[in-house]
């Protein structure tokens, strides 16, 4: 027993005496791939960024793996979507990481939802009979390119705070990002201008922010309650809505199961449009610019086809 105690004491002394991370890079862990891409835009070479979710994983239901906690253990900064999108797994990982730097309220805790105005904040009380409802509002805001300048500013401010030596570096990269983003956004808006006022149906309440920026009208969802499979009655009503409103497309992310939605589209005489929902959800969508380019391309092509 005495020997065991001595070994333990020696091990503890060894841990406590080791220096911090040997390289000077700021270690950032993000929940979503698009948030990781944003941090890379601002942090450049001064940061080392990993996303916990893959581009084709559903952030509502990510499997909380111990290896995720391991990555978070050494992180200086954790950046996440918030609005309870990650509530099923992130608290568990934060606990597993045993890293006071990134715990809620610490300097290394960055909830990006605090820098946007959430849509669809329920006005009355909420309960689970309404499905997987988010009491603080719709969490799928990262598909809205118009929000990125504000999100980028929030990231830059936090990087400055944690790594003040890099302040001018981050500011310069932020300015460059904002310039390029404004140009691209103007172009994306021009390319998608013909979509303004077009009624669409979406599978999940996932495209509300995107629709707001590009003027699309979302008339209904395939899921009548978020996260709950639709009832046959709702599908019947939806078929009528699609015909009545002349809806050309049902938006489905690459994550959604197309099965019944394809059948509905066939009956109602519209088309299922599969959209990449995140950075790295498809080949060639490995940063923010290429991801939004792909989104715009898919919609632009669909619009051209619909006109023919």
């Amino acid at each position, binding site marked *: 027993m005495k020997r065991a105690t001595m070994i333990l004491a020696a091990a503890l002394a060894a841990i406590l005496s080791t220096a911090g991370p040997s390289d000077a890079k700021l270690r950032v862990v993000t929940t979503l791939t698009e948030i990781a891409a944003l941090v890379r835009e601002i942090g450049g070479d001064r940061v080392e960024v990993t996303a916990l979710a893959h581009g084709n994983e559903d952030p509502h239901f990510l499997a909380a793996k*111990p290896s995720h906690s391991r990555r978070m253990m050494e992180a200086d900064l954790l950046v996440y979507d918030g609005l309870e999108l990650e509530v099923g797994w992130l608290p568990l990982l934060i606990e597993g990481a045993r890293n006071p730097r990134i715990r809620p309220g610490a300097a290394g805790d960055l909830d990006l939802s605090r820098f946007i105005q959430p849509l669809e904040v329920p006005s009355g009380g909420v309960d689970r009979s309404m499905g997987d409802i988010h009491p603080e509002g719709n969490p799928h805001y990262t598909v809205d390119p118009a929000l990125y300048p504000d999100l980028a500013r929030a990231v830059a401010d936090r990087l400055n705070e944690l790594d003040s030596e890099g302040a001018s570096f981050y500011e310069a990269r932020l300015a460059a990002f904002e310039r390029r983003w404004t140009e691209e956004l103007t172009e994306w808006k021009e390319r998608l201008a013909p979509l303004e006022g077009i009624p669409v149906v979406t599978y999940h309440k996932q495209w509300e922010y995107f629709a707001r920026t590009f003027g699309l009208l979302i008339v209904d969802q395939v899921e009548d309650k978020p996260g709950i499979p639709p009832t046959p009655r709702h599908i019947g009503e939806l078929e009528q809505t699609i015909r009545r409103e002349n809806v050309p497309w049902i938006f489905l992310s690459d994550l*959604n199961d197309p099965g019944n939605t394809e059948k509905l589209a066939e009956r109602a005489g519209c088309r299922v449009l599969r959209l990449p929902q995140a950075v790295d959800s498809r080949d060639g969508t490995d940063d923010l610019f290429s991801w939004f380019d792909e989104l715009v391309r898919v919609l632009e092509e669909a619009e051209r086809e619909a006109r023919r």
Partner: protein
Amino acid sequence: MKASKIVFAFVPLLFLLLAPAGAFAQSATATGISRNFNPAISLNALLLYAGGLTAAEEEHAEGEAEAEEHAHAHGTGEGFAIQETELQVTSYVDPYVKANLVLAMHGTDGFELEEGFGQALFLPRGLGLRAGKFYFEFGKHNSYHTHQYPFVERPYAWDTVLGAHGLNGAAIEATWLTPLPIYTEILATAFPLTETVYGAEELPENTWGRAAKLRNFFETSEHTTIDFGISYAGGEGVENVDRHFFAVDGTFKFIGTGSYPKKLELQGEWMRRFEEEGVNEVDGAYAHALARVTRRWHVGARWDGYFPPPEDHDAESHLEEKSVLHEHEEAHDIHTYTASLAFVPSEFQALRVDVLHRDLGEETDQAVRVQYNFTIGSHPSHPE
């Protein structure tokens, strides 16, 4: 002073010593009643139908009132029963400690404290500390709460060898998530010895047991992981006889893509209890496969084995601690085969049907378990 009392006296002292200065400054509160700082509360209920008993049922009919009472308390008798109701309360105490309480009611007999511990939030470098009462990290199955069991019942050996409540008690646990590139976690636990580990009530005072675990976790690909652990628990007990528990566990998981991915889990665990080399050696083992085949349907199959020593008088003392189905006093190998089908309409409820076939050597048992469970309240986090 009982050893468990010492633990509880020690906890606040420990946090006092470790918390930075200024931690205990209190600011005045405004008048009125605020709900802002209420803890997160969730409640889970398990309703059970048990039926189809054969050999065990006959023995049960012959008497054994104590076993019946116990089975009733655990909701494992025949017929419909509320198996368990579990109330979980979690909150930050302050910036330095998080508290977690789990109150469980077995059947309708009143709540008991299943877990209640404080967790340090301030330790750096992957270090963790918790103190209070909790399930020890010993193998995989021991730390599962009833609603987390992969099948309705625990494997036979876990129910008999570890006792009806598993290795659970007042303890202090230190953990270290090492900075090695492969996930490596080391856990060390010290606990005052109680009947939890010994099944004996007359223990020398102030004797402490110890437990340790090494856990590795590998992400073998984007879709697959392997989890591996070795565990020990034990201590000196009645008449200076040491009792030891060892366990080795391994889990392989596959998780597909999409919102409701297909999943496969293969898990195996082996456990041994002994007093001295070769004395009163009892082995337990299980292997299971669980699969999510569609969005709402899951299937599973398990084998589990119980291997007592040839003359296992000791194991008999544990027989009182078991459900009706387990009531076989002969010391021979027992193999149980379970098939399971579950319907999971949402992450907040599930309906499960288990069919068991138990091979007791000369005779066999068949049983069916139908379990419905639901969770309400604060969104629970679920580990993978």
